[in-house]
């Protein structure tokens, strides 16, 4: 199997593994990720994050929690994509082999010992970044689906 095919097919498989169905709300997705990881997930906005080389968001996991930090954006859809991209990294279990040097500059107050993994949405050039962005697109589509379904009533009668 080529790398192209691998990256393209990983997202639908990961989406299936979440067992949330074809459509779900953002909150349901966060709950599913928290349940899967067995730890809380915090999402925090950091206004000046993008001043650093165009970084939109980053995720770092500690033993106690997962933290997603994203930059400020006037666009709710863009903001959602930042977070979904980081959630995709978590779902795809990325970040085992990452060099954490960059994290020292971004988050100097976090001790390396407490920081397990760190990934950031910046340039989408590596296989992991492309896979995460692709899964984020799928997650966004599923969230759009939940907007269309609106309620259980319309799911059954509509």
């Amino acid at each position, binding site marked *: 199997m080529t790398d192209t095919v691998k990256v393209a097919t990983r997202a639908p498989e990961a989406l299936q593994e979440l067992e949330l169905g074809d459509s779900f709300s*953002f909150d349901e997705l966060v709950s599913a990720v928290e349940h899967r990881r067995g730890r809380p997930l915090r999402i925090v906005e950091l206004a000046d994050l993008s001043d650093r080389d*165009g970084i939109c968001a980053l995720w770092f996991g500690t033993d106690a929690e997962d933290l997603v930090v994203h930059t400020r954006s006037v*666009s*709710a859809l863009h903001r*959602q994509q930042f977070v979904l991209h980081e959630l995709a990294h978590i779902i795809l279990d990325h970040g085992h082999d990452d060099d954490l040097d960059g994290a020292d500059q971004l988050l100097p107050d976090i001790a390396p010992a407490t920081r397990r993994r760190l990934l950031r949405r910046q340039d989408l050039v590596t296989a992991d970044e492309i896979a995460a962005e692709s899964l984020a697109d799928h997650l966004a589509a599923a969230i759009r689906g*939940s*907007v269309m379904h609106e309620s259980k009533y319309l799911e*059954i009668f*509509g």
Partner: protein
Amino acid sequence: MTQVIVSTLLWLLVASLLILRRGRTDRSILLSALTIAVAMTLNIDGLYRWVDRLLGGTNLVTLAADLALMLGIFFLGRAVAKATEYRPRIVRFALGRVVLAVALVCTVVAFAFIDRGVTTTTLMLDFGAQPAAAVYSMTQFAYDAIVLTAMAAVTTRQIRRGRGVDRLPAVSLVIGSALGLVLAAVVIAMDVAHLAGNISLMRGFGAAYSPLFLSTFLFLCAGLASQPAIRWMRARSRASATRRLVSQTTPIWQRANLVRPGMSQQDAAGFSAADPETRLHRQLVEIRDAAVDPRVSFELSDAESVIVEAAEEHLLGRGAGAGSSSSGLATRATP
């Protein structure tokens, strides 16, 4: 004639559900409509006589049709139960398999005790004075009344939640359920009057039977068919808006990709632009990525901003005619 009209209505409902709910996972309403359509068709006089003669001429077709009707009502109840988040134990029990099983057993046993004679299309008028026939009829209509009460409660909640034209199907279902409840009460009153030997009272109630029967199914079918029809029209309207927004944002996206190539330009991503919503989403993300990246020079004009914002509102479900957004991020992630 009433049976022919009702059967036609139900088969039209089945056809519309097959078309408008194509690809949907939940089949409760389709199963319900299909089973009730079979029940009503079996009650058309000519067909009834023909099939009953094949089965020995002892009115077994009445039992088959009525059991099919109860099964159809059960599927309807199951749909109602799935459609509401508010499900107290008593409602779950009433709409569950145990009550159906008890009702089916009571119906079959009561039917077995009716001295039924030969094929007749007016079984209850001919034999309704027998206690077994009264129990047979009352059991079915009591079960129907339970499900229709739940249906009325759920659809009333939906009327309060909906707005504009969205309310019409639920209003139709509430009216249909209410008429069905009156019909059940009228039938039970006819059974009691017949059992008591008060034929004039029974005929008095009987005058309301056909109009109630017809109007119940008319409103229920209209409600069940119009809900997916409205949804289908809304989906078509949304698809058309999506295609328009894709063409409006494409020049902006192409300009953004010149300064900051996005994931859609990566071969490894295997990005497919076949679905217009997926394509619009990707284009918007890449436009916004370019706009916030301090390493590149990319700005949106006022006119472009209006287009991009309209497209984002559309995708988030906040555009005209769309429901509220379920992204949930605004409350979780922003201060």
